[in-house]
């Protein structure tokens, strides 16, 4: 198993190389003179020359790229000339906000989405099941940034219950943004969980467990849930990266100084060193999240441990059970 973990971590190297290459190219392919874009048209020649040298634009692209690779190994992601601070420091400041937001929204997604999907599957033909399914389609149709504005309007401004701007009030500040991200995803996961549970319910081992006379709820929880959760987890592994950098709009609307807002502001002011650092971090998070999901798989289903270690899977951990 540890061999497998190491090999999976080894995948980071080509991904890092690729993303660094693309992100470093940004300095060269941006239209116009990047230094003038960053500093404005009327910059004095000395500053211009200094910044140009500091960005490594006076040397060739490959020298610049290799220099960056060398500094990454030392844990140095470069320097932001807009903020006059090291990129690592800027990212480390933004990261905790996004981590908190991710935890809150993930909790909401899991607590609301999965039980709703299971109930919808079990009560497929009843009114409650249909209501959940209908609500889920409606929820998927509600974009997070729109829900964010609606929540601000209702709970922040009309009722005044919860803060709508900034991270100042601890966990309370994260409730509305967490709901904005978590609820539409909960709707989506409810659909995934419902589909997967319905499939599981037709399996022979469920019929067998029921005919042995086990209580229905126990069959659902002990036999059904465990198997139904696999596709949900797969989806979650794929989405985790989106959680981390995807909250651009929500963080902007709620004025939370996290990674999403950092992405937005660094694109707006052309702060490419910061953008490059964020893209690298993103790749790291995606690979680690997929690894984590694979490890959880092995706990849910022992058959998978063998399949994973034999590497009968692609990078995203997709093809465990082509056809059971």
């Amino acid at each position, binding site marked *: 198993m540890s061999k497998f973990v190491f090999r999976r971590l080894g995948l980071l190297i080509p*991904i890092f190389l690729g993303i660094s290459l693309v992100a470093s190219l940004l300095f060269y392919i941006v239209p116009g003179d990047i230094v003038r874009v960053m500093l404005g048209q009327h910059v004095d020649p000395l500053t211009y020359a200094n910044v140009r040298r500091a960005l490594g634009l006076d040397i060739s692209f490959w020298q610049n790229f290799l220099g960056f690779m060398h500094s990454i190994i030392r844990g140095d992601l470069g320097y932001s000339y807009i903020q006059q601070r090291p990129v690592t420091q800027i990212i480390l400041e933004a990261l905790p906000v996004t981590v908190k937001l991710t935890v809150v929204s993930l909790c909401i997604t899991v607590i609301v989405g999965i039980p709703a999907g299971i109930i919808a599957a079990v009560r497929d033909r009843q009114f409650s099941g249909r209501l959940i399914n209908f609500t889920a*389609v409606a929820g998927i*149709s509600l974009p*997070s940034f729109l829900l964010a504005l*609606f929540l601000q309007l209702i709970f922040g401004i009309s009722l005044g219950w919860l803060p709508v701007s900034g991270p100042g009030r601890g966990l309370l500040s994260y409730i509305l943004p967490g709901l904005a991200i978590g609820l539409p995803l909960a709707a989506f996961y409810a*659909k*995934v969980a419902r589909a997967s549970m319905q499939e599981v319910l037709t399996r022979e081992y469920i019929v067998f467990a029921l005919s042995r006379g086990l209580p229905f709820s126990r069959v659902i929880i002990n036999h059904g849930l465990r198997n139904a959760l696999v596709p949900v987890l797969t989806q979650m592994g794929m989405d985790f990266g989106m959680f981390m950098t995807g909250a651009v*709009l929500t963080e902007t*609307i709620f004025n939370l100084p996290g990674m999403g807002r950092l992405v937005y502001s660094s694109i707006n002011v052309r702060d490419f060193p910061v953008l490059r650092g964020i*893209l690298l971090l993103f790749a790291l998070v995606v690979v680690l999240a997929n690894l984590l999901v694979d490890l959880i798989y092995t706990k849910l289903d022992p058959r998978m441990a063998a399949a994973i270690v034999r590497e009968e899977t692609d990078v995203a951990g997709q093809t465990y059970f082509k056809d059971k």
Partner: protein
Amino acid sequence: MLLVKHILKTNKSVFWGVTVIALLLAASLLAPLISPADPLAQNLRASLNPPDGSRVFGTDSLGRDVFSRIVYGSRISLIVGVSVLTLTMLVGTILGTAAGYFGGILDSVIMRVSDVLMSFPPLVLAMIVMVFTGPGVVNLVGVLVIIRWPQFARLIRGQVISTKNMTFVDAARIAGTPPAGIVLKHILPNCFLPVIAYATMSIGAIIVDETALSFLGLGIQPPDPSWGVMLADAKNYISVAPWLVVFPGLAIMITVFGFNLLGDGVGYLLNPKQNNRIEVIHGDIEG
């Protein structure tokens, strides 16, 4: 015709989806007749007026009629949605078919390019490209095609691979049909069924993408009445003029809901046994 009638009667998802889309089409075609005012006409003396008899959805910060702007905004949403979907299907079908049918190096190259594109967060990728190309409808459509074609190409590729070894394709080949004929007449028509539901739901997601980018100031530019542009402006007045958020927001929500309902219903019709199949359409590009 009879079949269409039967479907509309028995499948409520399809019925409501079609109704919403028909209303949207009507609004965008008849915009000059429906809207009481010019969507761009400013009137600073009537700024931020709440909804009343003459201005049913109120006025925005520049005194423009919100109802008229929403009606005209439906044009932008539909144009962007349909053109992005058409181009995505075109690019995705060509590349996906090429990859699936010919395989080999071509397949690897196309799939690796799509891997790279899919490994970026879509919204971030779209934002970076928009910054390079500058805002505007044409660039916006281009960017949305760039972030959408990989998924589509993958779907088509999978279908082509599973179809190309079927007996009827072999029969056509033995009968001497040229490769172009095999692909166009025998393989593709058999690939499109699963694509239809996906495509329907994609329109909703594309409209969300457009509004999100316009909301960030990277898509449609003011003063054009895109729903996203309207929301971006409304955000600054949310505490004094909530109607500016509510009405464009509802417009987006109902539109996307309509397309998703239709997609849900179509998916059910095409595959009634597996109606519980996972619809892997994530509404928006944001988490």
